[in-house]
């Protein structure tokens, strides 16, 4: 399908700027939009038939950014972009946004995530679009078009927009962790029941590490952090290839350290949905995160105050991970963190 020239570049530029802004607030997006006067993208003397086709193609391009595997922030940006394009289009009656049936569960999950993390403005915008009947519910995402082309254009979307494909995360999801927790509890109870002392399992029966679920979760988090850092390092390496100045390197390494802290904060925020807490009492973790790092402005600061963690162990682990980031000297080459048998050596 022949695409609108320059449109992909413009959209990617806007989404890139939104990603740099490091927030998911609609006000910020609206500022970026107004800066570029994006609503003028439909201007120019276009007659009705052509305008319909153009708007359809624009909405289709923007819709692709709305679905996985793109990063959470990009998807929120795509939602705002769709809202903007749909509202400012010049076609009468308005051209609709096509969403395939197979993508709807994904999108509903996305909306639930938005509501859970209190991004009420994004959820409101999605709801407005639904109420305005802006969606076509189709079988296939792309409308077929029959033109024999000499070569099929491969749409290369920017790699930076995508979430790093996290196989570990997709394997160890919150569901899996909850299951493991439940089974583990059951197992412990069984052991208690069959052993002599009813309150505690027999020493002979302790064949596994009791806290392995938490260990698993921490390892997954570490892996994600490592991957993020590696990607950041790779991006920085691209920039610093031309810079041979030692001094520059020094400052770069330093900023990398703080960047890693930022990256860690970002991962922690995003990872809540991938590796969610195994039980309800851990909900507050987000609250703690935002208050401890003043730089990040993810999400609105919640009005209600939550109790501190009842379990000392997870808090200890989280803090220790942070300390590790601040103190650790950054080396050029980051190897995979070594996972040893002992429980405590994970945090050093």
């Amino acid at each position, binding site marked *: 399908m022949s695409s609108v020239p320059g449109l992909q570049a413009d959209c990617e530029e806007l989404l890139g700027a939104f990603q740099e802004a490091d927030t998911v607030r609609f006000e910020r997006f609206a500022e970026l939009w107004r800066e570029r006067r994006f609503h*003028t993208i439909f*201007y120019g*003397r276009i007659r*009705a*038939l052509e305008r319909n086709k153009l708007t359809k193609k624009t909405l289709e391009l923007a819709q692709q950014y709305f679905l996985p595997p793109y990063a959470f922030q990009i998807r929120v940006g795509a939602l705002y972009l769709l809202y903007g394009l749909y509202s400012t289009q010049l076609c009468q009656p308005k051209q609709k946004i096509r969403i395939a049936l197979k993508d709807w569960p994904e999108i509903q999950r996305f909306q639930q995530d938005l509501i859970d993390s209190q991004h009420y*403005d994004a959820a409101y915008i999605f709801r407005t679009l639904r109420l305005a009947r802006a969606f076509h*519910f189709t079988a296939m995402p792309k409308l077929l078009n*029959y033109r024999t082309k000499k070569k099929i254009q491969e749409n290369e979307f920017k790699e930076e927009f995508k979430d790093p494909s996290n196989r570990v995360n997709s394997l160890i999801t919150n569901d899996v962790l909850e299951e493991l927790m439940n089974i583990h509890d059951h197992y412990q109870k069984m052991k208690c029941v069959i052993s002599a002392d009813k309150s505690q399992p027999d020493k002979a029966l302790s064949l596994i590490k009791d806290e392995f679920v938490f260990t698993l979760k921490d390892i997954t988090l570490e892996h994600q952090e490592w991957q993020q850092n590696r990607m950041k390092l790779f991006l920085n390496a691209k920039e610093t290839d031309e810079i041979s100045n030692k001094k520059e390197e020094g400052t770069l390494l330093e900023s990398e350290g703080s960047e890693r802290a930022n990256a860690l904060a970002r991962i922690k925020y995003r990872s809540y949905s991938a590796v969610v807490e195994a039980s309800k009492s851990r909900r507050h973790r987000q609250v703690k995160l935002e208050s401890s790092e003043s730089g990040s402005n993810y999400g609105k600061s919640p009005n209600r105050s939550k109790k501190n963690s009842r379990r000392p162990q997870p808090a200890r682990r989280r803090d220790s991970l942070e300390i590790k980031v601040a103190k650790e000297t950054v080396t050029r080459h980051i190897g995979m963190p070594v996972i040893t048998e002992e429980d405590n050596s994970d945090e050093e």
Partner: protein
Amino acid sequence: SIDTLMSSDKEKDPDVIPEDSSLLTLRIRKKALERREETIIVDRACRQETLAYEMESHAIGKRPDNPTDLVEEGELLLTLNIFYPVIFQKHKDHKPYQTVLVLGSQKLAELRDSISCVSDLQIGGEFSSQPDQAPEHISKDLYKSAFFYFEGIFYNDKRYPDCRDLSRTIIEWSESHDRGYGNLRSVKMEDYTFNDLSLKIGFPYLFCHQGNCEHIIIITDIRLIHHDDCLDRNLYPLLIKKHWLCTRKCFVCKMYTARWVTNKDSLAPEDPCFFCDVCFRMLHYDVEGNKLGEFLAYPYVDPGIFN
């Protein structure tokens, strides 16, 4: 309050591209517009474009007078491309087609009735001796059989007693040897609606009528009916796009569409030669209606007759 953040500060003319735009799309479009201004003298929609736009949008938002004709909420809307059977050399790369919207709950027979093919109007036979008797039996009335082929099943039109099962030949052929076509079945077209079928999008299916006139049918889109669509059931199957075919004009006056074609005509400069009705009679028959000269004349229906 969220809505006002989006709109522009003052009313701008949507036809004028702003000068200092930072958008690449607009810069490219501006160049194209400037080029257009230089080369085109009169910049306005030609009649094909107007027709195409009209066809696409004439039924949007229509509501029926009779509330029983209202399309219901969970109805499916299919978009079919029906390709013409004409084989012209200039259509080698892009075969012309018409686009039809059908509802999921409509019967296949309704679609069959809505397909207008020029071969249905053909009149067989040589009529040079009796030109006035020509438009008596058009093929549509004579050969009423037709079938659809979807996913290994032939849907035959059996509404009239003289409809034959055209697919029987194919089924017998495939069963005679092990040709690897699996099980082909034959059922009645009027018993099935589109909701009963299992279809592949983008896969070519067949509609055959008149014994050998074959149209390829491709389904391009299936979606739920929307508030802004046409909700009048009587208007479906709805034609939204049609290919414009140039009609052949009469050789003499070059104004009217040809209605007759002659072969071996001593009075005509070329073989075959096309004439409109008036010029045909004026050239080949005298005042009393006697045939002048030797020729064979056949009634001709131009493929562009549905424009």
